[in-house]
């Protein structure tokens, strides 16, 4: 049962991170209501996406072949990664100049497009990992002889996920706005980096990219990425105990680019 709970929490934590941070940020914006509509629409779209993907994974829907599903997942990872980075920079600029722009009547199509971007990033964050949770829960349901037990696990799982969301909101109130968003940015950028690493590894597995040197080193004695804690770190930061050179190069290039642009942004 502990394992089931951990899995439910872990899969939802990524979505909660994105949704939670955006929610906390939106609450501080003057244009809050409009943004929130897009946020919840994104959550709804994400749930729909998760159900659709779960149906494909369970073999209920035959819309995608095995390979097709792999490429679709690859695309989702890359797009999610890119949009999360974009989201971080957008929150930075937006936070500072939005009020001024509003007053200067700068509402434009650009804003609408950015809100749609927000919707997509939320939908992807919710949909990607939730698909696996849906499949997992579907199977869990058949394993539990009593419906009551199953509902208990489900309720605890949802509760655990909600706890993540709640903790984030508390954090936004307890810490200064500045601190909260600095930490949020780092968490989001780490997540985007992790998604990028996974995408590159998928490309290697699909024989599109060469691994170059594999593995470069082995730190599984220190932290095994097949363990629960290690796996969590791997999913949220891109840590690999036995990394190949190609993902490492992309990871380094990513952080170099991100830190360079971040430095240009902070005055």
């Amino acid at each position, binding site marked *: 049962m502990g394992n089931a709970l951990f899995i439910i929490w872990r899969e939802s934590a990524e979505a909660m991170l994105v949704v939670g941070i955006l929610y906390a940020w939106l609450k501080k914006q003057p244009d809050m209501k409009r943004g929130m509509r897009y946020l919840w629409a994104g959550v709804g779209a994400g749930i729909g996406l998760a159900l659709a993907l779960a149906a494909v994974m369970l073999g209920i829907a035959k819309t995608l072949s095995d390979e097709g599903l792999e*490429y679709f997942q*690859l695309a989702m990872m*890359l797009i999610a990664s890119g949009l999360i980075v974009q989201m971080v920079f957008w929150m930075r*600029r937006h936070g500072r100049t939005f009020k001024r722009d509003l007053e200067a009547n700068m509402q434009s199509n650009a804003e609408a497009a950015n809100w749609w971007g927000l919707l997509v990033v939320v939908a992807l964050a919710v949909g990607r990992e939730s698909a696996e949770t849906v499949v*997992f829960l579907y199977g869990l349901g058949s394993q539990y002889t009593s419906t009551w037990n199953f509902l208990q696990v489900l309720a605890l799982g949802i509760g655990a996920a909600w706890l993540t969301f709640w903790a984030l909101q508390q954090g936004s109130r307890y810490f200064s706005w500045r601190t909260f968003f600095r930490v949020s940015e780092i968490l989001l950028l780490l997540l985007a980096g992790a998604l990028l690493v996974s995408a590159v590894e998928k490309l*290697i597995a699909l024989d599109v990219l060469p691994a170059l040197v594999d*593995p470069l080193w082995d730190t599984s004695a220190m932290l095994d990425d*097949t363990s629960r804690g290690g796996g969590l770190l791997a999913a949220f930061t891109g840590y690999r*105990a036995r990394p190949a050179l190609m993902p490492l190069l992309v990871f380094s290039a990513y952080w170099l680019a991100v830190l360079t642009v971040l430095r240009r942004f902070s005055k």
Partner: protein
Amino acid sequence: MIASKKLVIPGIPALAAAFAAALLLASPFAHAAEELLVLKLSAKDGKFEPLTLEAPAGKRFKIEISNDGKGPMEFESKDLKQEKVLAAGAKSSVVINALKPGTYVFFDEYHQDAPKGKIVVK
């Protein structure tokens, strides 16, 4: 000085193009039909049968995974960079590119406490 709002979503068209390119790459002429060594693996609620697979070094091969358990399982290997979810009763396969000699670990992410399997490549 108002910062240019051209940061709109320049990424999206670029990423859409990348996606389209990826789909194009998925087309059948990526790999000609070839005889692949097939290894069979059964997963039953976290229990792998066999726990250790053997494969030759330097050759691509395929692992046919059969989920003989009551619930879903996820075949995952960080070493092989593979992840695949299988519903109860489902069968699927993963193609592994040529490997160097060594031991490669795989596990069932939905039964993480169960013993991990390995592929010994010689």
